[in-house]
């Protein structure tokens, strides 16, 4: 894709040089989505447990939190939709992902030298993307049910209860993904956090973590004997 073009004079991708990983557009969308999600997370946790109700005070108190939570939730859904438009193609599960998945234990244990090469996003990143994508669909639909609960007729009250169950389940699932995502993006994968802010990674970073993508954007041919590892 054109967004992956390595900006000059980095086209050689030599060691120590830098490669463009996220365009400005992608970075902005990521952080706009983050802000909406963070707001819904803080206020949602406040509504979730009396022991976390104090979180509502951080954003102006219970009634204010209740007023904005559904509105910014819809904003997050819109932002997720834009990320989908942006990343849908990159997030499709490929043959390389299946090989990588089979060796995921090596990834968890940081034995990265014994991992099949991955494309622009690895299988875990794709999993997180689709978790958030389907999560927000369920959150949006059930959230509408909770938002307009009185408009659900009494004869269809099972929809009221279903909304509660779905909203809670989907929220907890996204929180699980969110914890891992934040951990990996900040502490575990060094350089990842900088890349989603300034957009660039070092060539070594790209080669280590996303070799197929690195080779694609630097137009480097794989050395003889390694071609079989490419998709």
């Amino acid at each position, binding site marked *: 894709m054109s967004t992956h073009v390595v900006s000059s004079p980095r086209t050689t991708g030599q060691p120590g040089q830098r490669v463009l990983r996220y365009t400005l557009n992608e970075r902005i969308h990521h952080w706009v989505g983050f802000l909406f999600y963070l707001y819904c997370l803080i206020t949602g946790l406040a509504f979730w447990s009396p022991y976390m*109700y104090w979180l509502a005070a951080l954003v102006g108190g219970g009634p204010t939190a209740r007023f904005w939570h559904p509105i910014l939730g819809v904003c997050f859904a819109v932002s997720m939709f834009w990320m989908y438009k942006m990343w849908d193609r990159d997030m499709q599960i490929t043959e390389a992902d299946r090989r990588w998945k089979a060796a995921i234990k090596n990834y968890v244990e940081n034995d990265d030298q014994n991992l099949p090469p991955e494309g622009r996003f690895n299988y875990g990143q794709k999993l997180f993307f689709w978790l958030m994508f389907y999560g927000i669909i369920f959150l949006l639909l059930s959230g509408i049910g909770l938002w307009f609960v009185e408009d659900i007729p009494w004869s269809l009250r099972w929809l009221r209860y279903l909304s509660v169950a779905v909203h809670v389940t989907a929220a907890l699932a996204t929180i699980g993904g969110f914890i891992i995502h934040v951990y990996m993006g900040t502490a575990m994968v060094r350089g990842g956090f900088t890349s989603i802010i300034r957009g660039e990674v070092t060539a070594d970073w790209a*080669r280590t973590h996303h070799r197929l993508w690195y080779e694609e954007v630097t137009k480097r041919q794989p050395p003889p004997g390694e071609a079989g590892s490419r998709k």
Partner: protein
Amino acid sequence: MSQATLAIKKISGHPGPVPGAGVERDYQVAKLIDTTTCIGCKACEVACLEWNGYPFTETSFDNSYQTMPSTTWKYWNLIKFNEHEREDGTLQLLMRKDQCMHCADPGCLAACPADGAIVQYTNGIVDFQQQNCIGCGYCVSGCPFDIPKFNPETKKMFKCTLCADRVSVGLEPACIKSCPTGCLHFGSKEDMSFMAESRAKQLREHFGFEKAGVYDPPGVGGTGVIYVLHDVTNPEAYGGLPKDPHIPWVVRFWKGPAKWIGNLAMLFGVIGVTLHYFRFGPKEVHPPKNGDGGKP
């Protein structure tokens, strides 16, 4: 100085025991609604509006004697009408005063996430505290009687208070005071239950209503509003009074085990990634080996 409202324990210079010693107050209050003597005059609806200071609301006419389809945030008390066809083909005009039931086990209170927005007094009255309400509407999902209603202007929930303000100063609720037929009674739960059972017995033995009985559903721990019904086996006929009301199991699970499962899962998630960092640390970036064209 006389303090007439305080109970006296000891009296100076008084021959014999203290008058009234050992008397205990029965705190639990209840409203008794005898549907068999309700004439549907709606005086209680008007009294409710007047006492609570709401203007009469615009209504819709749907070829029934019912004022409006359901209670609203500023119309807490509604006589529900139903032309019920009995098995022998005869019609029975059923009228039931619909309002908050003041459950002993209130679903609204169980579902509410806002600290102090719903309270249950020791006398059994369940009361919304609008200053603490955040208007989320969870109480709507928790209520087995579809009672709490949202005020879109103030974004707070409202419902019948059982005139907690009146009861707290020793008055009966406004609806009770207005009833011209004596179908509404107010007193201690024990007295009201006794009165209700006597009336049901009378209906069974002297009026031919063999299925007459008292509606005080155990699924919600009993209610602060009890009904005498001609046919207690079919409460649905009385404008949709649920046969076996209970807090929805989803709400129970949500506010019970799910909370702890969810909280522990989130906690273990955070602990898990921390331990992972302690054990494996950050990922290394591997510089290319000489001449291998990029293979780490």
